[in-house]
């Protein structure tokens, strides 16, 4: 399965479809877009995220031709956009305010652009019909905009902008007024259209999940600038600033001073299994081992028979290795990588870590060496981030930590970072629960746990004293620019 990853932005040969070159837009003395430079490639699904008023709509309006950059240049396919009037660009925009024609029916609204393109009548009819089907508006074709609901209006606006099948589609909050189910369906329809037609999409949304779902790249904006552009997973897992980390998703921010970590003894060897990192993983592993112990095990002959006779015919029947949960953080960003670590198995009885923490842990946690230690509060142990860039040593930093990367348990776990606190609030979200835990110094920390098992964690309730733990690579160390 050699499916090439769609990443034209990494290919120096690729020509961008849209180029913003140092674009500034001012309204009076207010700067809405501030020296913005950005390339967007053909067939991209480019999502703009940012707080209200950060300039997303202004950016789109410049592309559509309703605003001119005060300074700088926008190129579309290498051609300066300011030379092309708005009605001759192969760009269609879906307006945030919909801008439906109130005197025309839904049908005529959708057909408006097709009629201007002087398409044959039959073709217009077929296309409008398709758009109506796509947006589920068939029954409303002959109604006027004031006779339909807000969500239906939004769908008309979407259908109208899609109808002309332009090269570039600008969607300004296209799905905000739809219910969750319809929104998800429409998202997939959009991705489908994108796949089939190769249209380039730029989409503004306030729904981060939506951006994560549909986008090939996400741009996070702040005060007229793009602060980070990256694939959804990188935006989420590797934000480049506290602003991005804080804006995208839920996050715990620990402000502190970074110190280079004293080099530890060689990492604990002999890891027959991936080290469980969280109490859930530990639980899972134990359950599995117990189960394996209960089950009859094949003998050597049985094993050979299985391998030689059975497996070629019906496929592998038995697992040679016991299963284990995958590691949440496969590769620490800095320092020693997994491959470079001392080869396991060879020294089964290597000296047990002298790194054994002074606390009463029976088994020392496997902390990769290197990285940073963040001294964030006098009364609290420093936080270990083995993936912290050492260049930040001695600086004010922020450890940004997603709530789902923090485990919560009633007994003290063994982990690189362990904090104690009291449960103040629990937000039950169905599939997951978010625990609001107050540490001794008053810091609030959010921890998330999936509601999958009926284990000890379920017993956690308000006012309980709990332990929060996370690995040395769970967080991201960022420079404190606040």
């Amino acid at each position: 399965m050699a499916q090439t990853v769609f990443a034209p932005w990494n290919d120096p040969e690729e020509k961008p479809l849209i180029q913003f070159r140092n674009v500034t837009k001012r309204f009076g003395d207010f700067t809405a877009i501030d020296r913005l430079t950005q390339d967007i490639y053909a067939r991209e699904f480019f999502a703009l995220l940012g707080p209200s008023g950060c300039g997303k709509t202004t950016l789109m309006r410049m592309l559509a031709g309703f605003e001119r950059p005060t300074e700088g240049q926008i190129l579309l396919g290498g051609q300066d956009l300011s030379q092309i009037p708005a009605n001759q660009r192969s760009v269609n925009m879906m307006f945030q305010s919909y801008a439906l024609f109130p005197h025309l029916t839904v049908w005529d609204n959708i057909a408006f652009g097709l009629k201007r393109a002087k398409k044959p009548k039959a073709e217009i009819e077929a296309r409008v019909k398709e758009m109506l089907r796509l947006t589920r508006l068939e029954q409303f074709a002959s109604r006027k905009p004031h006779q339909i609901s807000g969500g239906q209006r939004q769908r008309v606006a979407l259908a109208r902008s899609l109808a002309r099948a332009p090269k570039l589609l600008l969607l300004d909050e296209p799905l905000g007024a739809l219910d969750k189910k319809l929104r998800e369906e429409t998202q997939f329809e959009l991705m489908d259209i994108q796949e089939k037609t190769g249209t380039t999409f730029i989409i503004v949304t306030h729904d981060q999940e939506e951006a994560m779902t549909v986008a090939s790249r996400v741009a996070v904006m702040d005060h007229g600038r793009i602060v980070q552009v990256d694939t959804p997973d990188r935006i989420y897992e590797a934000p480049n600033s506290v602003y991005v980390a804080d804006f995208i998703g839920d996050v715990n921010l620990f402000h502190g001073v970074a110190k280079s970590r004293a080099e530890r003894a060689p990492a604990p060897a002999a890891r027959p299994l991936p080290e469980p990192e969280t109490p859930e993983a530990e639980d899972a592993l134990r359950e599995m081992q117990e189960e394996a112990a209960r089950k009859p095990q094949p003998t050597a002959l049985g094993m050979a028979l299985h391998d030689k006779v059975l497996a070629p015919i019906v496929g592998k029947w038995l697992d040679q290795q016991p299963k284990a949960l995958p590691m949440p953080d496969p590769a620490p960003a800095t320092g020693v990588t997994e491959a470079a670590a001392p080869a396991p198995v060879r020294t089964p009885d290597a000296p047990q870590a002298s790194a054994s923490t002074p606390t009463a842990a029976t088994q020392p946690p496997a902390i990769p060496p290197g990285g940073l230690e963040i001294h964030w509060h006098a009364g609290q142990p420093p936080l270990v981030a083995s993936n912290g860039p050492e260049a930040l040593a001695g600086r004010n930093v922020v450890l940004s930590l997603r709530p789902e990367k923090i485990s919560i348990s009633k007994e003290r776990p063994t982990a690189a970072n362990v904090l104690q606190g009291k449960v103040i609030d629990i937000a039950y979200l169905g599939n997951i629960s978010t625990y609001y835990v107050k540490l001794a110094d008053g810091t609030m920390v959010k921890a998330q746990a999936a509601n999958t098992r009926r284990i000890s964690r379920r017993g956690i309730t308000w006012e309980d004293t709990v332990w929060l733990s996370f690995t040395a690579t769970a967080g991201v160390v960022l420079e404190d620019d606040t």
Partner: protein
Amino acid sequence: MSTGIVSRGQNTALGAALIAVAVFGALVAAALWRGAAPGAWAVTGSLAGLAGFLALWTRAGSDQRTSFLGATVIGLPYAWLLALFLVPFAIVLKISLSDVALARPPYMPQYDPAQGWAGVVDLVRELDFENFVFLTTDDLYWKAYLSSFRIAAIATACTLLIGYPIAYGMARAPKEWQATLLMLVILPFWTSFLIRVYSLMGILGNEGVLNGALIRAGLVSEPIQILNTQMAVYIGIVYTYLPFMILPIYAALEKMDESLLEAAEDLGCSRLQAFWLVTFPLSRGGIIAGCFLVFIPTMGEFVIPSLLGGAGTLMIGKVLWEEFFNNLAWPQASAVAVVLLLILIIPIVLFQRSEEKAREAGK
């Protein structure tokens, strides 16, 4: 809820009583105006109405009274319409069915209150449609109607052609200017209509300001005859009624969302196409309202044609005035007025219909 029904019934009764008092009052006032002494019937009738009203009022509960007040506020325009339109119209209709007489007032028969109900019967018996028949015998009348219609139609079209660009410019002007521009449009109303028409005479006359300027500029050697031609009538009408055209069109254009034009352009329209496909249809309500507001009063216009149009301009308003004051033929003049009203009812009803539609669409 039964109490609701009762209170609503009582409200209707209160409203009806009040309207009865108003009608009686209007009739008494009309009688007084005609110089006839209000008979005992009028006084007792009014008093009876008032007494009935008061009786209902005192019996009504306090909340019924407040809701009655609400009903009165809504009912007032109707009372107004009744007193100032339907009652006068009834009087005019009655005169149009009477005969000319050398008397004061100059028509027969007169209602004699002393005879009571028998008087009414006598009166109705003597009425006929003679005057309406007379209108068909002289082609002056239908020519005047036709000419009025033509002048009103052309003048309305001119007003639209001039008014629309002005309204458009106002609506597209920067927001902070719009109040001032609106003010400038309304400003002429601060001067009496008659004075404005007289000053137009001063401008358009052969020795007037306009001709003086043209001659001084060397554009013409002799004054152009404008005053006392139909041209002057058109100028007068356009000038006078322009605000009635501008205001509704401005209101329609002003509330139009400008992003609609952007959307039209985005979908491939040129500026001109966007105007015809979006702006124009969306201002249609304003155009229709403006046209009716100009056309209907222009049809019956009398001051402008008589002051500016000279002898050559035939308009029904002028004919009516001459019948009434020069010939003292009140019955014929009334018949002319009634026919004019009947003609105008058609556009008025059309106007109402379009207003209603616009209101529905605006919901």
